[in-house]
């Protein structure tokens, strides 16, 4: 029997930019990539959801602050609360933080400069649905492109997150001034993850790195296991 293709949704908000690349990358990694419009109040039948990068609602007020109120975000929250796999990339990470699905907040880069380059990342967890293809301590190269990527949380919250091992990825070199060089974090249950770097832009050596595929293929594989478990 051919292995089933998991259905992974990608939400498009007004101002999303990387939704098409995310759809393409998931398709290339053998998922059925399903576009989801921000006005949809219910998600179609999905095995995982990706919130893509971009500038939803023009980054008005704060990055991700307005997207939090869109109908699709409420549906994604319900999906996540029920244990569904949700990955937020860049603006998607900002939205998940503003929606309270992930801890902390993303602030203006320390340098005040937009950073757009490949960065090394160090993998801290390989036991998550998003990192099963990685190994702890592995260095991977994935591009970033953001002006507001400095992850911040108050010290007591950082201590709690570190104790719970919720830091999934750290920058391997200074990038934007994030507390503890955090590049990606997950929720306590481990079914929601956000990261500033763009794995969907690094799924083929032609793009400069294929390391992003490690993360997205982990997600596809985990979603496929869910399909197999329920059939």
């Amino acid at each position: 029997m051919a292995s089933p293709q998991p259905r992974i949704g990608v939400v498009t908000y007004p101002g999303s930019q990387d939704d098409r690349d995310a759809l393409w990358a998931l398709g290339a990694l053998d998922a059925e990539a399903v576009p989801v419009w921000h006005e949809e109040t219910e998600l179609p039948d999905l095995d995982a959801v990706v919130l893509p990068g971009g500038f939803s609602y023009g980054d008005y007020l704060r990055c991700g602050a307005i997207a939090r109120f869109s109908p699709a975000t409420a549906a994604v929250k319900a999906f996540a609360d029920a244990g569904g796999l949700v990955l937020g990339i860049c603006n998607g990470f900002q939205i998940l933080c503003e929606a309270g699905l992930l801890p902390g907040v993303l602030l203006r880069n320390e340098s005040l400069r937009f950073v757009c380059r490949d960065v090394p990342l160090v993998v801290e967890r390989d036991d998550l649905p998003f990192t099963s293809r990685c190994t702890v301590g592995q260095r991977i190269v994935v591009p970033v492109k953001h002006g507001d990527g400095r992850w911040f949380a108050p010290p007591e919250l950082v201590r709690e997150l570190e104790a719970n091992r919720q830091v999934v990825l750290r920058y391997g070199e200074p990038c934007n001034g994030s507390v503890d060089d955090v590049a990606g974090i997950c929720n306590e249950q481990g079914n929601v993850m956000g990261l500033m770097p763009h794995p969907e832009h690094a799924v083929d050596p032609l793009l400069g790195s294929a390391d992003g595929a490690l993360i997205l293929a982990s997600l596809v594989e985990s979603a496929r296991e869910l399909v197999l478990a329920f059939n």
Partner: protein
Amino acid sequence: MKATVVVRPKQGILDPQGEAVETALEHLGFTVSAARVGKVVDLELDADDPEQARAQVQKMCEQLLANPLMESFEVEIHG
């Protein structure tokens, strides 16, 4: 009734915008020991009672206008 909300980066939070403004002011010859950049939101409300208006705006700040992790806010109600 009108209200003004001032949102500021919390004390201790690095504010690179403020630092850039401080440097720019120094370039102009001003002596500034610190600058912090926040934002102002002016609101017009359907409320008759200032206390009721304040309570409403307080909720708005907590739920949307400020992110309590990084920002503090002040509310001013104008008759």
